């Protein structure tokens, strides 16, 4: 490091200035932390497991993928596979089957939660609004196989 040459007078001037401004600046900082310490209203913590009941995600929150189902458990999926194609990393298997009339319907909607990035492109791509991102975030598990889910309860209609 190259230090600039300064005169003794200048040195003492800056030295004395620092002696005054230094402690003052520290006191300013201390005053802020004291202000926060003695003001419990400033605390912003949300206590998660305790506030489970009141905790509500935003309407658009993207959690786990789920199927939109009516009261009888019927879904709207036509097994077109738009969601599957729009998924950036193959997290959705739309497994189509034929119903008794020979028409292509949804057999199983397999969702690999383990690799899902919750980007929401599938929901955007679905022309019938058959899937949505559920506001569900308590999803930790000790068993990775439980992250592979079948979303539909019933076979598709058709």
């Amino acid at each position, binding site marked *: 490091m190259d230090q600039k040459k300064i005169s003794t007078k200048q040195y003492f001037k800056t030295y004395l200035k620092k002696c005054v401004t230094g402690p003052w600046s520290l006191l300013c900082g201390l*005053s802020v932390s004291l202000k926060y310490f003695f003001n419990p209203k400033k605390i912003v913590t949300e206590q998660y497991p305790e506030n489970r009941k009141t905790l509500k995600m935003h309407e658009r929150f993207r959690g786990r993928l789920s199927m939109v189902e009516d009261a009888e458990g019927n879904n709207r999926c036509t097994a077109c596979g738009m969601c599957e194609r729009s*998924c*950036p990393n193959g997290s959705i298997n739309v497994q189509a089957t034929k119903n008794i009339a020979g028409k292509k319907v949804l057999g199983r909607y397999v969702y690999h939660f383990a690799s899902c990035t919750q980007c929401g492109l599938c929901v955007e791509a679905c022309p019938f609004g058959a899937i949505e991102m559920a506001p569900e975030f308590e999803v930790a598990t000790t068993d990775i196989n439980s992250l592979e889910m079948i979303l539909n309860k019933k076979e598709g209609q058709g």
Partner: protein
Amino acid sequence: MSMTQLPPGFKIIRDENSEAYSDEFFVNMGPQHPSTHGALRLAIRMDGETIVELVPHHGYIHRGMEKQAESMSYLQYIPMSDRQDYLTAIQNNLGVVLAYEKGMNVGVPLRQEYIRVMLQELGRIASHLVFFGCFGGDLGGQTCLLFGFKEREMIHDILEEVTGSRLTMNFFRPGGSRFDVPDTFIPRVKAFLEHLETTMKDYERFLSKNVIVRERSIGIGVLSKEDAIAYACSGPVARASGVNFDVRRNNPYSIYSQLEFDVPVTYNGDCYDRYNVRIAEIHESMRILRQCIDKFPAEGPWRSKEKPVKLNPGRYYSEIETAKGLYATYVVAAAGDKPYRIHTRGPSFPHIGVLNKMCQGLTVSDLVTIMATLDPVIPEIDR
């Protein structure tokens, strides 16, 4: 030490017999180190506590995004951009989308432009608040870290309400965005700005004038204007060195040309200036946001006609100013719905390139200060 004995990347050859020579040793900072801001390894050649030379080793978080982009559709690449610089995800989205819009030749209605600018500026404030926290935190004041993140949470609350996700927004689309903003957006931003105004005063009192911070950052890590340009620095790092360059003003995108804002520039190029530039930018962003709130069109379409995302063959380049600096996207479009190649120029990469030059002769503590003020995000470098 002869050249052959030196680990890769080190260049300075010192004479063992000279007087200045003393026992040198090598220290690895990272890949898991609290102050390298991610998975970066810095191989440091030290003489006592003084850094003789430093070689950054990248690639610990190289995820091959550009390779993957070649087999993805254009739309599927947008979430990828979230994961590059995760602190300014919303801005990266826009960078990619602007390039797409050039390729698709679509425009954006006025309301959407305001949405874009407002989210951009919110993202910028959020990123700078993280910088404020990390700067204080890396200097040893843990409390700053929490202060910075406290206000950032509020921004992310707003962004979550708008986009649906806290960090990886995946929000903008060519010609518009995923959603319109909810009605609560403007009041919430307004309330947040009022809150931030008062809190920033506290925070600046807490850190800016602090004599220890000044001692540790003034004159440390000086980057001259010539070096800043030669090493392709951008954003606050370059502006602190006196490079008066901001894409928002020099090549305005969206509606930045219609808004009134200053580009803070300082001329010392040391750590304290970089800090000051960022703090000033928070205030400028707040100014832009206030203008946007006043002018925000209450009515009108929020996106243009939806089209399949398919670019005309050609090469498209877009650049935006993220909180870190110049973020450029280069798309090579071929026929079909997949890009031939997408390349991203992140602002942090050149900043790490100049690190060696800035640290020589300083100590490890200074390196931490410099790293904090460069504010790099490693996944954006490695992609």
